[in-house]
């Protein structure tokens, strides 16, 4: 047996390598840098890593390769776009994570124990959240460019495991936070098991663990369709779980609510991008020729996601839960981009993902601002009159809500328009009509929040808006600007996406 060293294209892989390297250095920093310096060092390190990775992504735009890592990964236009989106979202999320007020000083300490108080008084900070974030980002970067089942599974776990932990790090309401971590972990592993089982059957169907092999089997139509269908379904369960589509959505509200808000922001935005990035690649290339089998199923899932997400969101009293249900509805909208199965669907989905991700981070960023003496206030009733107390926070939040609702002149509208027209092009009339109608329902609760903020008199209960740092403010502003610009003049971005977004097989 001759051992040939693997041929790796380091330039194309550099963004991922940089991230992994940064994450490992972060671990070392935890070990060797003094407590006082750690926050600054970690923040700088993470930001630097992310920026560098983003620069590398920018540099490799337009490059295409099926074999940057021996056929396990692929770099093409969509890959670059998804990776870029993830990095941009990660950067503005890091700004939020930098607000250490949000995190418990000592994750190991019992909630409410003396130990915890001591740690708090000592000014301890869980700086390990930075390397965790970088690891998660690395997983997210790999997930949409993986081209074999092993890579896909490993990437899925690499992105998930740090998130499970990060969900449990909240400083306030630690019990809830830990609970959310538990739920996220158990359900996530549960879904992973389905995913893996599906992967096994796909392997059984095609005799290959590479996407190209599976695709060839699908095209050839020689394999056992039952194996294909089971494999496809169970693999999809894993993916649909990650994007939070009904009926695999149940973790979303609880985890979104329980996790520290900066983590929720990061998770809600970046995971969705990564997971949909992977779905796009899998459905547009691997399963494209089996569309007869999955389009009806995904359509049904899209429809119930949109409807259920919108309906239940109406009844929410907690802003984070409401955004969670809204994200379920958005998962439905995004699935119509998968159903589209055409070039415009691909462009539209990528655009939508970016626009939605940015607005989501912006929205949660505003949530972190609204506080009382014991921390964040997420009860919507206490958001009354926010417009008077902080026009900045309230108008920004209103803008993000309008973007979620898909009101023209926000990015959400362009996204919705393009994704629905792509789906309609592929004959998904029912999905489009449900999408439009559930947008109307969705508008109902977005507008209700706007009413609360602007048209309801404030209750004096100590709820105030605090801007913890320039970074959080920057997040809100950047997100708002992007949301507006993409709504008013999206042409450059759209053209950029259209030019780049071509899958290579």
């Amino acid at each position, binding site marked *: 047996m001759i051992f040939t060293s693997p041929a790796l294209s380091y330039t194309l892989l550099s963004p991922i390598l940089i991230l992994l390297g940064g994450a490992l250095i972060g671990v070392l920093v935890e070990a060797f840098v003094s407590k006082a310096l750690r926050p600054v060092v970690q923040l700088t390190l993470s930001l630097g890593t992310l920026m560098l990775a983003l620069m590398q992504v920018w540099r490799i735009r337009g490059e295409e390769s099926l074999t940057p890592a021996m056929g396990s990964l692929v770099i093409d236009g969509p890959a670059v776009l998804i990776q870029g989106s993830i990095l941009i979202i990660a950067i503005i999320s890091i700004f939020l994570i930098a607000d250490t007020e949000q995190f418990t000083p000592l*994750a*190991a300490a*019992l*909630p409410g124990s003396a130990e915890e108080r001591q740690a708090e008084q000592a000014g301890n900070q869980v700086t390990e959240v930075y390397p965790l974030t970088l690891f998660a980002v690395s997983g997210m970067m790999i997930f949409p460019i993986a081209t074999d*089942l*092993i890579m896909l*599974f*490993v990437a899925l*776990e690499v992105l998930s*495991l740090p998130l*499970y*932990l990060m969900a*449990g790090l909240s400083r306030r309401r*630690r*019990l*809830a936070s*830990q*609970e*959310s*971590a*538990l*739920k996220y*972990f*158990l359900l996530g*592993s*549960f879904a*992973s*098991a*389905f995913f*893996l*089982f599906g*992967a*096994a*059957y796909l*392997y*059984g169907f095609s*005799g*290959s*663990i590479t996407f190209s092999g599976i695709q060839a089997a699908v095209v050839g139509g020689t394999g056992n369709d039952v194996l294909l269908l089971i494999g496809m379904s169970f693999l999809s369960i894993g993916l649909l779980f990650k994007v939070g589509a009904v009926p695999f959505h149940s973790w979303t*509200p*609880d985890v979104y*609510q*329980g996790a520290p808000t900066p983590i929720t922001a990061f998770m809600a935005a970046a995971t969705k991008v990564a997971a949909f990035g992977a779905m796009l690649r899998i459905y547009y290339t691997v399963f494209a020729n089996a569309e007869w089998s999955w389009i009806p199923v995904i359509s049904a899932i899209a429809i119930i996601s949109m409807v259920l997400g919108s309906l239940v969101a109406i009844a929410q009293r907690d802003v984070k839960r409401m955004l969670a249900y809204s994200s379920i509805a958005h998962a439905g909208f995004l699935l119509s981009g998968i159903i589209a199965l055409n070039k415009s669907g691909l462009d539209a989905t990528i655009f939508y993902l970016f626009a939605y991700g940015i607005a989501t981070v912006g929205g949660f960023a505003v949530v972190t601002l609204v506080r009382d003496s014991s921390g964040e206030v997420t009860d919507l009733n206490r958001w009354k009159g926010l417009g008077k107390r902080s026009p900045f926070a309230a108008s920004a939040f209103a803008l993000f809500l309008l973007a979620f609702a898909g009101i023209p002149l926000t990015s959400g509208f362009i996204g919705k328009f393009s994704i629905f027209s792509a789906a309609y092009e592929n004959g998904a009339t029912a999905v489009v009509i449900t999408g439009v109608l559930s947008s109307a329902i969705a508008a109902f609760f977005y507008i209700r929040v706007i009413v609360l903020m602007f048209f309801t008199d404030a209750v004096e209960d100590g709820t105030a808006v605090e801007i913890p740092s320039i970074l959080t403010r920057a997040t809100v502003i950047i997100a708002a600007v992007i949301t507006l610009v993409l709504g008013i003049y999206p042409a450059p971005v759209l053209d950029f996406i259209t030019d780049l977004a071509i899958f290579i097989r």
Partner: protein
Amino acid sequence: MDASNYLYISALLFTIGAVGVVVRRNAIVVFMCIELMLNASNLSLVTFSRINGDLDGQVMAFFTMVVAACEVVVGLAIIVAIYRSRRSASVDDASLLKR
């Protein structure tokens, strides 16, 4: 012996695991059920590897084991934290977040 029998066993194990997740309360047991599901998948992988006559499936099974080990680390950390703060490993007790 027909290789497909291993597939049936795998499916059965997977089902047992899945049902276990739903019916058992203890977080550790739930987690073990999930591990059972992962191992059921491994069994399938290995079986398919055998049927197909290549090693990809077996390689993947190894990866799965590694990943499962990682999951154990993370999972136990979380479960222990919960147990410490709640003095209970029942997943039903952790139901603050709902509706």
